[in-house]
């Protein structure tokens, strides 16, 4: 009998100054993962972006539960998406898609209150001390 794969759904939030499309996010995630773990690692960890909202910059990423630390590490080493400096923050992890979608909605409501001013700050030029 084929062993059933236990999937995990990672709710992620993209921090970036640009506005990348779903394709850009997919490409960047796979590039970063393949760069760190190679093609063999990618074959062990079937990454799939389930959803991505360009306005709230929140999305859901699917991977096997054993691959979660690998995905997190590759996400941490990702530094740009489509030429813009970016970072990805895993907000929550869920075992079912239904629960992941609920958490996604909850996160998007929560972010509305405080994220805008952080994002505005990121777009300003950085300061230099003498």
């Amino acid at each position: 009998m084929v062993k059933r794969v236990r999937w995990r759904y990672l709710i992620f939030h993209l921090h970036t100054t640009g506005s990348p499309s779903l394709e850009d996010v997919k490409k960047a995630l796979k590039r970063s993962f393949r760069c760190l773990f190679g093609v063999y690692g990618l074959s062990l960890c079937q990454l799939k972006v389930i959803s991505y909202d360009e306005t709230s910059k929140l999305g859901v990423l699917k991977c096997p539960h054993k691959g979660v630390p690998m995905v997190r590490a590759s996400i941490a080493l990702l530094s740009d998406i489509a030429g813009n400096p970016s970072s990805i923050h895993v907000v929550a992890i869920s075992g079912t898609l239904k629960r992941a979608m609920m958490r996604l909605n909850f996160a998007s409501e929560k972010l509305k209150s405080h994220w805008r001013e952080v994002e505005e700050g990121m777009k300003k030029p950085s300061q230099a001390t003498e």
Partner: protein
Amino acid sequence: MPKRRYVDLHVKLYGDHDPPELLAKMAKHLGFSLIAFSLDPTPLQRCNEIMGEVKKTCEQLGLDVAFRLDLQPLRSGELKSLLRKYRRTFEVIAVKCRNVSVARVAARDRRVDVTCFDPSDVPSLLDESQVNLMVESGHFIEVNLLDLVYEQPEKQARALWNYRVAIEAAVKKGVPLIFSSGSSKALEMRAPRELSSVALLVVGNERLARDSVSINPMKLIEVNREKLKPTYVQPGVKVVESW
């Protein structure tokens, strides 16, 4: 079981950096309980001004803040004079070792808390005698995520290899590891679990990796805060009552 409190022990406030308020907001958003802003050696009065302003901002956000000094001396004499000048002002003193003489003096000196190395220098500087000295004086070793974020995979692989070989041996001997972002911009900061996943690639043990972003840096800050109190005399001795 108590909830883990995560710490980013290295957020730079020198060179080209984002405003401290933005960095603090980002740290709060990512789930850190404490961040340590690092300064470079500037006049003490200027340091105190910056620290006062940043502390006020972080208190408003409900984020615990500590200050650290990053030293990159080229000679051991320079290191000693800087330590004499700044030790009582900062909670954490970190030394980036660039040559063997500085590395040995830093490892022997109890005023130094954290030692870090350039990824290319790790195999030559972090040898067995260096590790033994660090164990004796209770030093922490630090790895910054920013040292691993490279454009070229070859350089990244080399840095990971160097760190893994040297640090695995040091951690086995009992040198506690601290893994921090080393960022100076909000977009360079990473969440604690992401940091611990990268630490896992270096140490190869999940518990040690998780401790490197929570228990180890928190312990260091708590001990050093206690040391900076006027009642502290020496390890295990403090003024309880004076008359």
